[in-house]
C-alpha cells in the first residue's frame, strides 16, 4: 500500500563514521549475497520501523551494493531507494552514474532508468543512467572518423609521456592509414590528466595521420575498469578487463572504423601485461556481435638495453635524477617535470 511506503525513513551516511550502521549494512548485504565494498563511502539507507530494509552505495559515480531485505521486498522500497540514491548522487555532483549488475537484475535497473552499455555474456552488464550516454559519445567520435583500409587505435595513460610512448605511436602510425590516439582521462595517476594530455599533444607533434582524442568515462576509467563485480563473485582473471575491452570493440571501434589496436609490450607492470593478454581475447575472439579488432603488440623501445617505462621515469623523478630522465623523455616532458614536479633539494649549506 502506498501509505505503508510513507513509513520508510531514508538517511544518507558516510559509512566510515558509523561502525554500528556499517555492521547493519554488512548484514543486509549478506542476506542478498553481497558484501560491503571498501571504496563505497556513501550509503543511502532505508528503514522501516527502525529496521534497515534497503541500501544503495556510491563510490564516486558508480552505484554499488544495492540491496533490499528479501523479507521486505516490494517494488516501492527498491524504487524509492534508487530514486533517493540518484538524488543524493546529484547533490554530491555525480549526474552520470554507472552500475554493474548480474543478468537477472538488468530488468529491475532498466526500470530505474539505467541502460546497458555492454554485457559480458552471462556474467555481468555495465549500465549507465542515461539512454544517450554511450550513443552520443559514439556519435561525437564518428564525427572524427577518417577513411582508410587500416585504421588503428591506441590508448595510453602517459604518466608521464616518454620516448617509449613516442616510439609506440610512431610505429603504429607507420602501420596504418589513420591512427586514433586516446589519453586515459581518469585522474588516478601521479600526473593529473590535464598535464598528461598536454604532454601527449606536444610529444606526438609531427606524426602524420594521427587523430588525438581526449579520454572519456568509457575507456579505462573507474567505471569501465571496476574490479567490483569480479571480486565479489570470485571471478578473477579473464573477466577483469572484459567490460572495458568490449566497450572498445562494440562502441568505440565501430564509431571510428578502427580495425587494429596497438599496444606496447610491458615487461614491468603485471596489470598492463594482463591487460594486453586479455585484449587479444576480448577484441578478437568470436564472442560479440561487433567485428573483431586485431591486436598488434609493439616491442618497447630501449635505452641502454633497458625498456623505457613511465614508472622508471617516476622513480628517477623521486630520486631527482634529471640527468637520466633526460635520456627517457622528450624535451617537453623534461621541461614540465623540471619546472612543476621537481622536489627542491635540501641545501647542504
Amino acid at each position: 500500500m502506498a501509505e505503508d511506503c510513507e513509513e520508510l525513513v531514508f538517511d544518507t551516511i558516510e559509512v566510515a563514521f558509523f561502525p554500528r550502521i556499517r555492521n547493519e549494512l554488512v548484514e543486509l548485504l549478506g542476506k542478498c549475497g553481497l558484501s560491503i565494498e571498501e571504496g563505497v563511502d556513501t550509503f543511502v539507507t532505508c528503514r522501516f520501523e527502525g529496521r534497515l530494509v534497503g541500501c544503495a552505495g556510491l563510490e564516486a559515480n558508480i552505484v554499488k551494493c544495492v540491496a533490499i531485505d528479501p523479507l521486505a521486498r516490494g517494488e516501492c522500497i527498491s524504487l524509492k531507494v534508487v530514486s533517493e540514491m540518484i538524488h543524493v548522487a546529484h547533490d554530491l555532483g555525480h549526474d552520470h552514474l554507472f552500475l554493474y549488475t548480474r543478468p537477472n537484475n538488468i530488468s529491475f535497473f532498466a526500470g530505474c532508468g539505467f541502460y546497458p552499455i555492454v554485457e559480458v555474456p552471462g556474467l555481468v552488464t555495465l549500465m549507465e543512467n542515461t539512454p544517450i550516454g554511450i550513443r552520443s559519445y559514439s556519435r561525437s567520435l564518428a564525427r572524427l572518423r577518417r577513411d582508410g583500409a587500416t585504421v588503428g587505435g591506441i590508448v595510453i595513460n602517459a604518466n608521464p609521456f616518454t620516448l617509449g610512448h613516442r616510439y609506440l605511436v610512431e610505429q603504429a602510425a607507420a602501420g596504418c592509414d589513420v591512427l586514433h590516439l586516446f589519453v586515459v582521462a581518469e585522474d588516478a595517476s601521479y600526473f593529473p590528466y590535464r598535464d598528461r594530455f598536454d604532454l601527449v599533444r606536444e610529444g606526438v607533434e609531427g606524426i602524420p595521420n594521427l587523430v588525438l582524442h581526449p579520454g572519456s568515462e568509457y575507456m579505462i576509467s573507474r567505471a569501465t575498469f571496476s574490479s567490483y563485480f569480479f571480486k565479489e563473485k570470485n571471478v578473477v582473471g579473464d573477466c577483469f578487463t572484459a567490460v572495458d575491452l568490449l566497450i572498445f570493440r562494440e562502441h568505440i571501434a565501430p564509431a571510428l572504423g578502427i580495425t587494429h589496436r596497438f599496444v606496447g609490450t610491458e615487461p614491468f607492470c603485471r596489470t598492463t601485461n594482463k591487460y594486453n593478454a586479455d585484449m587479444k581475447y576480448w577484441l578478437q575472439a568470436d564472442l560479440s556481435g561487433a567485428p573483431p579488432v586485431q591486436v598488434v603488440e609493439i616491442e618497447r623501445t630501449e635505452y641502454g638495453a633497458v625498456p623505457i617505462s613511465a614508472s622508471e621515469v617516476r622513480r628517477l623523478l623521486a630520486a631527482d635524477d634529471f640527468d637520466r630522465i633526460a635520456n627517457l623523455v622528450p624535451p617537453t616532458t623534461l621541461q614540465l617535470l623540471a619546472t612543476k614536479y621537481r622536489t627542491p633539494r635540501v641545501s647542504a649549506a
Partner: protein
Amino acid sequence: MKLRRSMLFLPGANAAMLSTAFVFKPDSIMFDLEDAVSLREKDAARMLVFHALRLPVYREMETVVRINPLSTPFGLKDLEAVVRAGVDVVRLPKTDTADDVHVLEAHVERIERECGREIGSTKLMAAIESASGVVNAVAIACSSPRLIGIALAGFDYVMDMQTERGDGTELFYARCAVLHAARYAKIDAFDVVFSDVNDDEGFLKEVDLIKRMGFDGKSLINPRQIDLLHNAYAPTQEEVDYASRVVAAAEAGERQGLGVVSLNGKMIDAPVIGHARVVLRRASASGVRQ
C-alpha cells in the same frame, strides 16, 4: 455549513498519493508542504500541489494546504502558489498569536488582488501547536473573518509543554481551550492526528472522546481512518429520528412566525436546533452508525 469531520493529510511531495487520494472522499483533503516534505523537496512539492489543486477532481472537494511557516524561506512561496492555484483553505502551522494570522491575511489579500481572485475567497485555518497558541486561542480564533477553524497539533504542543503524547491527559487543557475558542468564535475545531495507523481500537477511543467533547473533526494521516471516523460521527437511528422532529418543528415554527419552537409541549432552544441540524448533516453524509 460545511461538514468537516475528516481532514486527510497528504504528503505534498508524493506524486502517487496526490494522483489517487481523491477516491478516499474525506470531508477535506489537506496537502502538506510542511513537516511531511524534506527540505530538498520543498520546491518540488509546491509545484506538485499547485498542479494537483487545479485538477477537476480536487476542485470538487474542499482543499486545504498546510504551508510552511512564513518565518521560513518557503512559507511565502507556498502561499503565492496555492492561492493562485485556487486552494479553498490555507492552513497556517505554528500559530502563536492573532498577529500571525493578520500577517498571513495581508499576504493572502495582496495575492488575491494580484491574480484577480475574489477578495476573501481564500479561507484560513490556524493550527495551534504551542502553549502560547493555546493561551491566545480566543484571540486567534477571532482574528479574521477568513478563519473557518482552528486545529490543535499535538506533537509540537507536547514538546513545548515538556511532556509527551500519552493517554490524552497531556492534551486535556489544550483541547478544552481550543474548543472553547472555536465555539466562541463560531468556527470549527479540529483535533490532533492519531499516529498509530495500526491501532484501530485506540483511534476509535480517541475519536469517541473528542466527539463527546465537541470537536467537529480530526486530522487524519491514513485513508483507512476516514470510514472509521465517519461511522463514529454518524448518529444512531434514534438520534436521527429525534433530530428530524426537532428540525421539522423548528421549520414549522418559522413558517408560522412563532418566536418559540416547541416539541411535545416542551420549548426547544436555538442550540438544540443547531445541534439537530448537525446530526442530520452527518447522517446524510454517511448514514446512521453501524
